[in-house]
């Protein structure tokens, strides 16, 4: 067991974890924050994307033990966040989700795009999204939603 001290969505947590426990499983099974999803468990699909110290990371290939001392924000932790509020509304209006499984990871990645790359155009948005797979939407609504939030934030 490894000791872990971590902040998740503003809450300080101390826990003993098996070294092999992924950050994703710690969040889902131990903290019961089930909005973070597992789609491939090898770092390709992006469903498990969370913020670690403000930057998006794959929680499926990050061991919880290695995340010691970090601040994690999961999809459940963005209630006071302006870009996330904008994205949620835009995803809703642009039919950017169907089954909803990729959505939490997609939103965390999208938030990174709209905050880090304010000038991104459609090609750039698509490139930045390449690491988040959606099997339902064909990405049309997702790309439109992100472009609309970028536009909103430029005004």
């Amino acid at each position, binding site marked *: 067991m490894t000791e872990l001290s971590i902040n998740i969505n503003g809450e300080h947590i101390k826990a003993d974890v098996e070294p092999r426990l992924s950050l994703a499983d710690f969040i889902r099974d131990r903290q019961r924050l089930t909005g973070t999803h597992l789609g491939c468990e090898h770092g390709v699909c992006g469903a498990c994307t969370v913020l670690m110290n403000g930057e998006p990371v794959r929680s499926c290939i990050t061991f919880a033990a290695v995340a010691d001392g970090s601040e994690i924000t999961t999809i459940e932790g963005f209630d006071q966040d302006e870009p996330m509020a904008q994205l949620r509304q835009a995803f809703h209006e642009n039919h950017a989700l169907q089954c909803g499984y990729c959505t939490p990871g997609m939103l965390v*990645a999208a938030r990174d795009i709209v905050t880090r790359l304010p000038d991104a155009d459609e090609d750039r948005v698509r490139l930045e999204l390449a690491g988040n797979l959606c099997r339902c939407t064909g990405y049309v609504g997702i790309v439109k939603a992100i472009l609309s939030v970028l536009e909103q934030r430029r005004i």
Partner: protein
Amino acid sequence: MKPAKFEHQRMASLDEAVKALGNAEGETRVLGGGQSLGPMMNLRLAQPDVVLDLSKVEGLDGIEETGNAIRVGARVSHARIEDGEVPGKTGDYMQFVATGISYRSVRNRGTIGGSVAHADPSADWPSALLALGGSVTAAGGNGIRTISLDGFTVGPFSTGLGWDEILTGFELPVLGTDANWGYYKVNRKPGEFADAIGAVTLGVEARAVCGATESAPFRVTEIEERLASGVQEVSIAEVRDILDRYDAGFDDYELQIHAVALSRAVQGAFA
């Protein structure tokens, strides 16, 4: 898809890590950002007994220019390089390479040192840095050692690091402000591993690398000679002929895309 059991040792310093590596029993792996090792462990393709976690070790994440070299710490993330933290023309080249590695959420954790030490043949840094030149620094039981990047990658998942050594950083050449460089990757999708890499820099010397091979990336001296003599274009057919003389184990398609990558890297260098 969960990893096998292992012992996690959180290292506080490089000294501690080197000692731990020297004393470790069973298969021991050094964990940088974990973006290559993590998936392999989840798939149980890697089942180390001990994982030495370097994430809290200080002094591995610096970037500094020292006269005619740029020092880049092993734990510098791809994302920091993508964001332009490496200065000058060398930084421009490395920024271009970093931007094409996997996805941003992987680049935030993945490290340049981890990538080179892991030595996946289809990863970017082993090829890109070979084309840049310079050296690797490593710490081991016998102290700090500098190893030339030429020949550092020995084969798939195999490097010149000793069993008790940890890669700590790189000393890379400063490309002059008018130096040309080109980098071209053939892959199926953005972020996917490369099927072929062509990398060219024209610093103090001309370097041209054929990468993402079955084994280690290699320098293509015929092309370097041409570049050194002022040639600014090498056709795909010419590169094919040249590469065909190397014993790289390419089938026809692989030969073709490696020729494309190198030819286009040259083209990019003078675009």
